[in-house]
């Protein structure tokens, strides 16, 4: 569903991602694990088109989007939940979700979105900026889902969120996985969270993939070692 080959990404002269290749299959949940500063966010930003790829290619469902702008990639079926949520603070919850509906041509927020996130329905007339971190995270996921993506990117969805809500988010992601034909790619540092959702784990270190495991085969002690400083 998502094919990345030999992707290089740089900030000016300094290259951060050094030729990464991977593929995420249909209905697969892939976790990319790594410490801070290892290139997770950079990788995600280049997948959605916020950062330009220096070299390599990105394909969604067979279509090459490497040269496309963000909004065209979204049209092609990729959606993005950024690190730090980045919801629109002065738009209401409902309006926040509606910003994602231009691409999918939906006129009304589908019921299944509110079924997944009942708290958003309750708060739909509040300003997005006045929600708590966990609620904003749910809002950012809802906003991405209404674009009807084939591939959903989540960049550190648990960052700054309390443990009980982290469990909720894991449950919601599993539910989404069951309800839709969707490939989920998530970047994370919290191993328990990825173990609850991912089919496959990849460890990124200094802009290279250094380790890969199916969830069944994961040696948690070994991965924890990669994640510890």
């Amino acid at each position, binding site marked *: 569903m998502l094919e990345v080959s030999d992707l290089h990404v740089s900030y000016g002269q300094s290259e951060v991602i050094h030729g990464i290749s991977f593929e995420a299959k249909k209905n697969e949940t892939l976790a990319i694990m790594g410490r801070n500063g290892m290139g997770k966010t950079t990788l995600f930003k280049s997948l959605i088109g916020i950062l330009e790829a220096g070299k390599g290619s990105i394909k969604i469902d067979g279509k090459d989007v490497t040269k496309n702008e963000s909004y065209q990639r979204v049209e092609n079926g990729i959606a993005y939940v950024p690190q730090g949520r980045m919801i*629109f603070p002065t738009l209401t919850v409902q309006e926040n979700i509606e910003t994602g509906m231009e691409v999918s041509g939906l006129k009304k927020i589908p019921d299944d979105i509110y079924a997944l996130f009942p708290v958003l329905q309750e708060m739909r007339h509040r300003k997005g900026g006045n929600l708590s971190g966990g609620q904003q995270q749910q809002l950012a996921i809802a906003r991405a889902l209404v*674009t009807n993506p084939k591939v959903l990117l989540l960049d550190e969805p648990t960052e700054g969120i309390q443990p009980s809500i982290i469990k909720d988010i894991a449950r919601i992601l599993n539910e989404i996985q069951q309800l839709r034909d969707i490939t989920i790619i998530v970047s994370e540092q919290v191993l328990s969270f990825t173990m609850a959702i991912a089919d496959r784990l990849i460890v990124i270190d200094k802009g290279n993939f250094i380790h890969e495991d199916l969830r069944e085969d994961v040696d948690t002690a070994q991965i924890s070692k990669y994640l510890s400083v």
Partner: protein
Amino acid sequence: MGDYTTQELLSIFAMQGFAGFSLFSVLLLMALGLAIIFGQMGVINMAHGEFMAVGAYTTYLMSAVSEKYFPGFIQYYFVFAIVFSFLIAGLLGYLAEFALIRHLYKRPLDTLLATWGLSLIMQQTFRSVFGAREVSPTLPDWLLGSYQPTDTIDIPLNGLFVLALTAIVTLGVFILMYRSSWGLRVRATTQNRVMSGAVGINTKKIDRLTFALGCGIAGIAGAAFTTIASTGPTTGSLYIVDTFMVVVFGGAGSLFGTIASAFSIAQAQSILEFFISGSMAKVMTLLTIVIFLMMRPEGLFSIKVRK
């Protein structure tokens, strides 16, 4: 205010207040366009006044043409002139964005210089085409004359017309910005351009249309302006400073703030002008605004959310 009776004072306030309404209307129409463009794109459009002048000259041209070729049309041309002013100023704005401004988005100071250059080019074009002398369109009869509620109060009809026009345009902008999906995209882009792209909004297209809309509204301001004063090549630049003042005082990104700010600035100037000289009135208004902004840099109204 020694020599006036209470009755006279009331009439003065009513009439100066109403003159203030006309100024308020033009300022608000100008500021609406400027605020949308500045809020959305962070572009300080120094040529905004010239887009107003485009509207004013369009109205003048239409008046001249109908006077010469379709004398029967002279009573009605003005309504069409407003529409054409909007379209022509909007189209020029669209072209300016396409040819000039979109290349400079990441360089705010350069857009300032570039739009200033554009304003000089436009001024010279007006001078070459229409001459340096001020021009006025022939107003239809229904815009002349005045309404006299009492013996001492005289309220000009053109002022009433401009006020009504402003109300309609403001309402239209409000509906467009807060009730349409296009407005939602504009507001999303204003808040976070990168993220708007990442939820599927074509931000470049939104920018171009927003710029065109802002300039189009300036064009309407120009058409309205012709009913209360005559138009010269530098008309636009006379209003641009006041317009910036309105936008900053009102708080960028707040439609209601822009209205309140245009109202208070226009009224303060108009009423003070009667009692002290025009330039003193301006100094007083400016001083008040400067002091106010020192205490409240975000302007009159700003939307509060958790940081």
